[in-house]
């Protein structure tokens, strides 16, 4: 557990060198401007959180103030938390009390990489202190205990055996309680957790609710507390740290290739292959950049993985920013499944389906998944629904029923375009039409092919996901008034028409012809 009491001010000062101490952040609370965060210098001068801004200014005339931007700070803290996954894969932001300031790392089975728990804690703390953050930390068997110790005691490592004595001595505030509960406890004269623990549980529950006992048990490890890690834990990954930070994308890709080889060897030994690969770039200045690529089929081929990442990186050319450098790179794999040991290397297998899939992967990684598509036929008589474009990565060859295929255009316009009719024929095909400012004389035509709308939907509204019922005192959510579906209005009569030059179009008349009203015609596609 790491606790950064002055995170908001420290963070802002690091990003804007012009902000001088003492610095305080204010926030509008119940109509009044009150301090929400103060830095160490301001705290030394006697300012505290919750003070009125005008009072604070009167006490410390040279005070620098800024308005607190919570979403920004929370997002920045989340980045900061992600960056800490270079020490442990399971990192969470503890937002029981505040959206920023508390960081939980699950270091089970990690500490030995840093030479033990004590050196690890020292490393984490000095690393941040060198950067100008005020930080306290604690390593303890339970999350609750670590929180209390990091907030209310010196930074230390607490073993399971010494846990009770350390917690007993902590004040009751160290239990993450609501302010009301703390006030009640101090009224009762209970100062430390030890005193609280020796009381009867039933009366405590009756007075302070079950949450107090829950917090108490969590601190002592009697019940389990779970953390929600920010990044999904990848079981298989390869990583490399750099003594000197690197910056160039080429270097990153070379490293990625090395890591892909390491990872590939490991996956091969396990007889596994992956479909999703993630590259995490840990920047020196507490940011993590992540790139992800997907592959259509299971793979562990380092060349292919590197190729995908290099395509992906070309796509973000402008967005890539190494900042002051990258000091660690991790390549993780997810969506892992069994892959036979024979297939390795792009050209070892004779089948060409793999080649095609790899080509689709490469194109998707550079152009985007939604840019590489395949047609999937859907059984629908509505032309635009009969074909669906799906990403080639997920498309599968389908069985087709051998119905006689109706004549359909080779190209379809995504949105039908309206055509003007200048020589109208009542109930039937016009003799000529104007489309895109060109006039076409219709020489030959076949049709109509009447495509009715989906009559089974007639009189219905579009089905929306029903909203949850409003709670008491809440205004019911807005439900849009959708029009009733009326199939007659959207019935289409399709014609294949040919003009004097031999161009062939697919046009349709929308709705049924009403005497006295102009017919509405659209052009929908081109025949070869």
């Amino acid at each position, binding site marked *: 557990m790491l606790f950064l009491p002055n995170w908001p001010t420290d963070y802002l000062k690091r990003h804007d060198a012009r902000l001088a101490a003492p610095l305080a952040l204010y926030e509008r609370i119940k109509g009044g401007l009150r301090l929400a965060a103060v830095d160490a210098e301001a705290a030394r001068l006697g300012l505290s959180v919750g003070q009125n801004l005008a009072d604070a200014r009167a006490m410390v005339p040279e005070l620098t103030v800024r308005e607190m931007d919570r979403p920004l700070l929370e997002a920045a803290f989340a980045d900061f938390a992600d960056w800490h996954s270079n020490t442990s894969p399971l990192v969470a932001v503890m937002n029981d009390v505040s959206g920023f300031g508390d960081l939980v790392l699950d270091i089970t089975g990690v500490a030995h990489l840093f030479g033990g728990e004590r050196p690890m804690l020292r490393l984490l703390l000095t690393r941040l202190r060198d950067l100008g953050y005020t930080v306290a930390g604690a390593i303890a068997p339970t999350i609750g205990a670590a929180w209390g110790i990091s907030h209310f005691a010196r930074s230390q490592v607490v073993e399971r055996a010494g846990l009770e004595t350390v917690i007993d001595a902590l004040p009751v505030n160290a239990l993450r309680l609501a302010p009301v509960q703390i006030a009640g406890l101090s009224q009762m004269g209970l100062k430390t957790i030890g005193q609280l623990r020796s009381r009867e549980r039933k009366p405590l529950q009756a007075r302070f609710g079950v949450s107090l006992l829950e917090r108490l048990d969590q601190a002592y490890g009697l019940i389990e507390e779970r953390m929600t890690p920010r990044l999904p834990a990848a079981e298989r990954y390869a990583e490399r740290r750099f003594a000197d930070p690197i910056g160039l994308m080429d270097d990153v890709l070379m490293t990625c290739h090395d890591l892909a080889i390491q990872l590939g060897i490991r996956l091969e030994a396990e007889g596994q292959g992956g479909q999703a690969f993630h590259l995490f770039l840990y920047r020196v200045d507490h940011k993590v950049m992540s790139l992800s690529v997907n592959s259509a089929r299971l793979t562990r081929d380092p060349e292919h993985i590197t190729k995908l990442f290099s395509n992906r990186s070309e796509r973000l050319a402008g967005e890539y920013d190494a900042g002051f450098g990258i000091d660690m790179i991790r390549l993780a794999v997810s969506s892992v499944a069994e892959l036979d040991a024979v297939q390795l290397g792009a050209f070892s297998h004779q089948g*060409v*389906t793999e*080649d*095609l899939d*790899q*080509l*689709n992967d*490469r*194109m998707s990684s*550079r*152009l*985007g998944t*939604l*840019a*590489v*598509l*395949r*047609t*999937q*036929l859907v059984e629908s008589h509505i*032309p635009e629904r*009969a*074909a669906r*474009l799906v990403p*080639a990565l997920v498309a599968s*060859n*389908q069985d087709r029923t051998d119905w006689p*295929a*109706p*004549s*359909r*255009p*080779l*190209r*379809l*316009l*995504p*949105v039908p375009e309206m055509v003007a009719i200048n020589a109208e024929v009542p109930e039937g095909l016009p003799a000529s039409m104007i*489309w*895109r400012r*060109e006039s076409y004389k219709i*020489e*030959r*035509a*076949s049709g109509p092919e009447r495509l009715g709308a989906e009559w089974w939907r007639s009189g219905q509204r579009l089905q929306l996901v029903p909203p949850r019922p409003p709670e008491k005192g809440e205004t019911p959510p807005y439900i849009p008034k959708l029009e009733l579906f009326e199939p007659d209005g959207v019935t289409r009569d399709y014609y*294949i*028409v*040919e003009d*004097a*030059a*031999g*161009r*062939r179009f697919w046009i349709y008349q929308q709705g049924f012809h009403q005497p006295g009203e102009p017919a509405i015609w659209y052009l929908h*596609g*081109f*025949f*070869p």
Partner: protein
Amino acid sequence: MPSPDQQQRLAALRETIADIERKPALAEARVRVEQQGSGFPILAGGMLQEIFTDERRNAGALLGFALAQARGLLTQQRMAVIYLQLADEAQKLGMPYGPGLLSFGFDPDALVLVRAANMAELLWAAEEAIACRAVAAVVADIGSHSKLLDFTASRRLSLRAAATDGSIFLLRYGQGREASAAHLRWRLSPAQSAPRRYDAKAPGPLRWHAELEKGVLIKKQTEWLLGWTENGYTAFTPQRRDADRLVSDAPLSRAVPAQLADGLPQTA
């Protein structure tokens, strides 16, 4: 001193070698075409073909002509055709439509549609795709002029195509012709369809008018009136609308125009 007869033969051989070295794909194609005899030639892969049409509204015929050739290149080993289009031109030109492909006689599963954001990405995708040995043909639908698509770009594509034996079809629109390293350049326009049996008012079997502007396939023939069914091309006499008579070694019915710079078989 070799005799004049020998000299002549030597010169002819030298020309043949030069022909092979400069544009092996086209030379090979010509040999194959000569073996096929009459009708519209079935072209082998490994060529960069530009197919022009005068206006965007002929887009349907243009795609049909390219896909008809591409279908002939599909084999068990080369099982895909990659269609490239700029994402913002879909509404202008329309997108290949699955059921339409079926009724045209092209398997929609064999077609991969790629929608590139800009010309640089489209050209990258074209090169990447043609390098893949599972790709039979790349059809690039380019509705607008771009500076990036210059002689160098087309030279790269033509070399790639020749190296991998897949064909690239560049679908272009408009009257302007830029310098390009394409092996063949077609000018395609739709023609009035043949009469339909039992219904004279309805459009019948499709007809295209294809004109070879660059490259030579069959000596002295540069124009074809084509039909397409699911079984392949049929060629008709260029001038006559009589649909039932196939041409067999028929002489051209009009004078062949002088070969201008445009029609030179070498690089443009």
